[in-house]
């Protein structure tokens, strides 16, 4: 559904994306027919357990899939332009200019041999048409924006001179300095302490609001998602299980996996003697069950679930892929299948 006005077009549009990895034991599909949009000024949270394909989706978008993993189907549109099939060189230009990436570990995503000033000005000179002096000013401005005190004095410092939280701020500045439209943040706070995590989440939200950047926030922390994201996509075994506004998905999940995931966080069962648990573990990609990948762990599974992949059901502003979605417990009437 394409809006008629320009600003209604999503910044990022992923359609039917399939990523495959050929191996000796057959072809694995870490991302299987995933579709979603992210609009300007919106944070889309992507959650799931390890191996669900969240990072792989992010890497596919930014063109950082490690061979032999490759996109075999579907398309990725950045502001309406396809980017899944363009040349390496063209993609390199887009990366940084139009999309920025924030990785989990801030130490390994910075070059330890260059000062942070060098790394920032290099990116700015590469992507923006400015001179050396102007680039340095912009680098200082970027560091100030992400909340690094005394940015002008610290621009000559090396990454090891910064603490973990400060390094992650530098990485964010680096992702932002060429003014991209899309930021992919892959577990940006996982390596950080709670108090620093709160600082980084607040920073991401502020940047998103003030600059209108579209953010894809990949994380496994439901609390971070609840506080930061506008919409959330839940992935399971490479497939999109559910996608919808964050409040709906967390409080009124339609997919049994989402409901189980939310219920099994210790936050959800405060005061209870035992935590709710989902039996079993996520299947390996090489041995995905037939039909719905979640059926062996699902208490609602029937013959249909074992035979065929689940249909997509749309509700209000969201959708889920399930044969037997949970009834919507809220006043807004849904139409359960």
């Amino acid at each position, binding site marked *: 559904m394409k809006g008629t006005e320009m600003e209604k077009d999503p910044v990022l549009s992923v359609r039917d994306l399939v990523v495959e990895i050929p191996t000796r034991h057959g072809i694995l599909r870490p991302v299987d027919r995933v579709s979603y949009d992210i609009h300007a000024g919106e944070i889309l949270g992507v959650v799931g*357990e*390890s191996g669900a394909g969240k990072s792989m989706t992010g890497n596919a978008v930014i063109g950082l899939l490690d061979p032999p993993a490759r996109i075999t189907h579907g398309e990725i549109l950045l502001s309406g332009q396809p980017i899944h099939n363009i040349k390496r060189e063209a993609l390199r230009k887009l990366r940084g200019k139009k999309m920025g990436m924030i990785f989990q570990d801030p130490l390994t995503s910075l070059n330890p041999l260059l000062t942070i000033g060098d790394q920032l000005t290099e990116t700015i000179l590469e992507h923006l048409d400015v001179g050396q002096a102007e680039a340095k000013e912009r680098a200082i401005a970027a560091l100030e924006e992400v909340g690094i005190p005394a940015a002008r004095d610290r621009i000559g410092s090396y990454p090891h001179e910064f*603490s973990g*939280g*400060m390094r992650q701020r530098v990485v964010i500045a680096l992702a932002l300095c060429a003014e991209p439209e899309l930021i992919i943040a892959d577990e940006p706070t996982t390596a950080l*302490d*709670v*108090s*620093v*995590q*709160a*600082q980084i*989440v*607040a920073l991401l*939200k502020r940047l998103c609001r003030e600059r209108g950047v579209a953010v894809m926030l990949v994380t*496994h*922390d*439901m*609390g*971070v998602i*609840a*506080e930061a994201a506008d919409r959330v996509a839940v992935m399971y075994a490479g497939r999109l299980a559910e996608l919808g506004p*964050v*409040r709906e998905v*967390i409080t009124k999940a339609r997919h049994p996996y989402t409901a*189980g*995931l*939310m219920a*099994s*966080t*210790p*936050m*959800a*069962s*405060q005061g209870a*003697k*035992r*935590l*709710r*648990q*989902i*039996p079993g*573990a*996520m299947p390996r990609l090489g041995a995905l069950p037939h039909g719905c990948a979640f059926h062996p762990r699902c208490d609602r599974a029937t013959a249909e679930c074992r035979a065929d992949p689940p249909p997509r059901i749309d509700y209000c502003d969201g959708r889920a892929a399930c044969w037997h979605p949970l009834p919507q417990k809220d006043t807004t009437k849904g139409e359960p299948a």
Partner: protein
Amino acid sequence: MSALISIKNLTRVFDVSKPWLNRVLERREKAYLTAVSEVSFDVAEKTVYALVGESGSGKSTIGKIVVGLLPASDGHVEIDDIDLATETDPAKVAEVRSEVQMIFQDPYASLNPRWRVREIINEPVAARGGKTEGLAESLLEQVGLSAKDAGKFPHEFSGGQRQRICIARALASNPRIIVCDEPTSALDVSVQSQVLNLMSDLQEEMGLTYLFISHDLTVVHHMADVIGVLYLGRLVEEAPRDKLFADPKHPYTKMLFDAAPRMDGFGREVDPPKGEIPDPINPPPGCAFHPRCPLAVDRCKKERPEMRQIGETRVACHLAE
């Protein structure tokens, strides 16, 4: 309630100086990092005592000292009134040692990849010359795996299953105390709930005492009976679980609770805490938290607050009431 573990004035200092030659050439002083500083607390039998804090707060160091993986620089750890560091009767030492076991954070690093699961689980008993016939098999079933798994190697298991193997190994010598150092931090949420439930069940069945180390407040809230909050190597607050969560007295505890993301916090705008944990080699004078504390007064910069008892809570803050 008698204390099973009693920790008194525990201090651990690490020498983090540069090598001798560098010190001479660069004219540097020796540097010491105080990881744990004058920490005292008691753990009652058959309860779960949780230590929480951010990285560098010294929680893992305390766990390692309790199991005896690290010696203390000062202070005592008494288990059943026996201080392992000074006890001279080897029989008593051996007995207490077998009563304290540990579960580590990373189930991938804490199992020997070349050993079969049976050997791994039997090791704590075999090392003391005990009988291991059928031990691994029965323990595996107890932790929710199958007896047949005893012949497999660790790589054949997922993260959650490996952590179950670690739990089985910890149970092998029939311990009374298990030190759990971030036992579920490396696990996914749905697997985490399985492992936490298993640990609760085992605690009830076998009457275990857990010293539970975690940075995750939600996990601690679920598991702990009593919680101790550490900041920069010092215990800043200790209270029974419900008391602590309902009425945190130390500003650092309040800050931690406010900063922790909440599942019902849709679009919550938090005023994020300021600053980061200071350098433990040169901690701030007075109360170590004063540079980040919203309430700090002059006294906090000069005088270190002592532990005070306020109701059920012990708190180290000049201003708490």
